[in-house]
């Protein structure tokens, strides 16, 4: 960045703003005290990879116990702790931090900023997480055991947890604080630090979806914090918020929880929509189809996510009018979601496609997420939901939108931007092997669960009638194979970072557009020290 008119002295005065590598010296300085958006992004992504493996191994315990009818491995109470912790770790430890990690890396580069708007807060919002997770996981080793009430923490059942409940509640508080600070940072960066010419409607879809996600997070994390605080006082201080015998209302918790919980679903999937909207145009060599309608569809989905919460609890007994309202509102979500799927297919239509690993994962996402969307529409039909609710059909539904949905999008994003982050190309061959094995086994794992649910198998049971044996065994085999396949993913990432000899260019992908591709690979430590001029051919869409 130093130019012909600046002297060496001036260069030193502007030390930190230089293009050259001025990373802090020493391991602690570099990682513990870092305020750099890329280093913090890397920390988030590694934490999430570890959580993905920890949560995944809990899923292996679950699938191993369900491999055959009869109890062979674990006591029912420990089984319940596994289902609860698997969900909490995957939602709060794997998927959410991974998206914040990508936002940290990408948002400043995509909008043409040097770093995040609030770098010190950024450090704090990451470093809360390892402590929160240690606390959460430590409950498994306590006398009273971890929480065993499902990740939804419904009272009165959750109040039967021992003293470890306090640790769970405080862990949730810390996770919430971290998410809120991360969101504030992302919003401040997007709204204040865009380069000249980067108007809102020129922003990449990933930035748009994260902007909306950040607002959702700020809106709902305090709601969750409030709900779990009431659990805390009910358990330890004799209040009766949710205790019917004391005049409280156990159903009220469900309303509060799902007012958080449903937007939470979109917090995990909206950034995925953004990533897919980045990757499909690149490998179709064609601009994103219907950019503005994509933005409006995202905002519509976010709005609707606040008025559909009770579809998670149709069977608690609601007035008919309430059931009808939540059914209609839920069905409506399929309209903007459909717009997105149609736009993605139209983006591919008449393109000039190539099928590198990120594109394969993106296509896998569109197909399998759509299947999850269909089962979602079925679940919206209230009367039929009185059969589907709390069965394996629901388990199949939300795993389709979260695993080949959110997680595939995270994998697509990893393959797509890893060469940019590291300056090295990953192994295309092993990336493709990872994709094909993941895609085959994720379906072997989750598709049979639709049959199990429809045939009458409830969720969250450690043992089942032999009539469900065949599909449970198939599902478990798919689960073990899918789990093992993810070790390839870890191998490809580590190889790309530390061993790969193939250097990536700044452009990386032939069809890629956007500001991050104008930087070198890996990008300079401080992304844009002077704001870039954003011209029309740098944006990803032609609207």
């Amino acid at each position, binding site marked *: 960045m130093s130019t012909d008119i600046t002297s060496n002295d001036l260069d030193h005065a502007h030390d930190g703003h230089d293009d050259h590598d001025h990373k802090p010296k020493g391991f602690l300085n570099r990682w513990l005290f870092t305020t750099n958006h890329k280093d913090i992004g890397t920390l988030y992504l590694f934490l999430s990879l570890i959580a993905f493996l920890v949560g995944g191994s809990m899923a292996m315990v679950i699938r191993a116990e369900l491999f055959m009818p009869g109890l062979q491995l674990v006591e029912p109470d420990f089984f319940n702790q596994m289902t609860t912790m698997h969900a909490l770790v995957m939602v709060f430890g794997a998927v959410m931090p991974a998206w914040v990690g990508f936002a940290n890396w990408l948002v400043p580069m995509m909008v043409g900023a040097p770093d995040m708007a609030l770098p010190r807060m950024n450090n704090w919002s990451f470093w809360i997480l390892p402590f929160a997770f240690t606390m959460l996981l430590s409950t498994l080793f306590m006398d009273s055991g971890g929480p065993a009430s499902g990740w939804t923490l419904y009272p009165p059942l959750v109040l039967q947890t021992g003293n470890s409940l306090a640790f769970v509640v405080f862990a949730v508080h810390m996770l919430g604080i971290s998410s809120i600070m991360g969101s504030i940072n992302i919003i401040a960066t997007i709204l204040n630090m865009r380069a000249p010419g980067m108007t809102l409607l020129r922003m990449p879809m990933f930035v748009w979806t994260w902007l909306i996600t950040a607002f959702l997070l700020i809106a709902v994390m305090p709601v969750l914090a409030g709900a779990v605080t009431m659990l805390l006082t009910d358990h330890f201080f004799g209040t009766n918020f949710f205790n*019917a015998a004391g005049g409280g209302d156990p159903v009220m918790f469900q309303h509060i929880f799902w007012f958080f919980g449903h937007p939470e679903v979109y917090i995990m999937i909206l950034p995925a929509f953004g990533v897919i909207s980045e990757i499909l145009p690149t490998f179709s060599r064609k601009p994103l189809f*219907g950019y503005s309608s994509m933005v409006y569809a995202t905002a519509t989905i976010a709005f609707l996510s606040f008025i559909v919460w009770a579809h998670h609890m149709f069977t608690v007994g609601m007035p008919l009018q309430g059931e009808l309202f939540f059914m209609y509102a839920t069905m409506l979500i399929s309209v903007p979601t459909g717009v997105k799927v149609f736009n993605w297919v139209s983006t591919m239509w008449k393109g000039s496609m190539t099928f590198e690993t990120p594109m394969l994962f993106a296509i896998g996402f569109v197909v399998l997420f759509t299947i999850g969307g269909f089962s979602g529409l*079925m679940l919206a039909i209230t009367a039929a939901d009185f059969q589907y609710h709390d069965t394996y059909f629901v388990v199949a539904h939300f795993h389709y939108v979260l695993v080949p949905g959110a997680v595939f999008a995270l994998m697509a994003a990893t393959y797509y931007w890893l060469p940019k982050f590291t300056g090295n190309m990953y192994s295309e061959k092993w990336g493709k092997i990872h994709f094909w094995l993941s895609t085959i086994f994720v379906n072997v794992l989750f598709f049979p669960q639709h049959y199990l649910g429809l045939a009458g198998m409830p969720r969250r049971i*450690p043992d089942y009638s032999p009539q469900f044996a065949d*599909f449970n065994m198939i599902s478990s085999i798919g689960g073990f194979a899918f789990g093992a396949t993810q070790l390839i993913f870890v191998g490809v990432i580590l190889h790309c970072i530390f061993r790969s000899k193939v250097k990536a260019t700044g452009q990386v992908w032939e069809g890629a557009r956007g500001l991050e591709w104008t930087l070198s690979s890996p990008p300079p430590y401080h992304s844009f020290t002077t704001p870039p001029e954003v011209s029309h051919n740098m944006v990803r869409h032609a609207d």
Partner: protein
Amino acid sequence: MKKENTVIVVLAVLAAVIAATWLLLVAPGLTGNEINMPRGVTSLSASHFDLHMIVLWICVVIGIGVFTAMFTSIILHRKSRGHEAAKLSHSTQAEIIWTIIPVLILVAMAVPATTALIKMEDASGAEMTIKITAFQWRWKYEYLDHDISFISTLDAASNEARQLNSGIAPESVDNYLLDVDNPLVLPIGKKIKFLITADDVIHSWWVPALGWKRDAIPGFINEAWTNIKEPGTYRGQCAELCGKDHGFMPIVVIALPQAEFDAWAAKQLADSRDQQQEADRLWTQQELMQHGEAVYASACATCHQPDGQGLTPAFPALAGSKIATGPVAAHIDVVMNGRAGTAMSAWQDKLSETDIAAALTYTRNAFGNHTGDVIQPITIAEIKRQNTEQETAP
């Protein structure tokens, strides 16, 4: 790209997508395993099944269309075939069409969905009422019109086989995990209303053949109804996570023609009169111990364990415990009224006086406890009467 080629590709992709759909949605059923929702034996279950199939087929048709377009594009529009990217980036017309058509499809779906829901929520005109009270991990059924009431628990054979490493093959047990000691017996061809509630945590009463589940929530009474068309045995399970034995809380409904149901009800009443007479006499310690062992096995052993050693920390041991070897009055109080904030249920209304007296006598004289106490059914009856008076006193 020649025109005919495109048509051939589209047709080939369409055939492949339909084949894949068949493989996923039809073929697995050919293995003899059930893969779809049951049509059930009530008008509600049939209407929910029809609704499910309508929406499923709409999704299948839309899915076939979307995936055919997508995979056609993947085959034809690839760089390796020399396809050049077109310039199109939006089309207002197309976007309006694919917003409006889904809305119309949704409206079409909403009509039968609304009708079915209104029908399900209308419990009026019921000729008979059953109150269901769920508690960890049993169901209590009260026939409000017949003065019959009993508790329904997982059958002993399943219970033995389901213990960790029991060594008993689940396949060798009839209706493993789906059988109970006392099934709910109902008449067919009658509109029956259920009032559903719970005592401790939230449960959910679900028999797929009846077409719905309904949560059992402490402090709430939920309404639901059924009208069973065919006699038979219908099995279900608790559907809402309710603690460690959530998976071991089955439901069995036996539907009988009216005459057979009446005979069953008459026998139940006669039995309960016999029981009442039994409760009024004095029992010997040996009789109480014998009966208490059976009551303990069915009601207490799930938590406190067959050997009385409990499961720390949630379920305390009874062997040598302060309660089971201490003052009788405190022991009776815990068993009758439960202990708030723990899994210990209030048994006063769930077991008969004789059962409670026997279980108390048994636990005070088993597992190495030697209090020598004998608690008579009439003592329990008297305490129960006092408790009830206290509750109803102004």
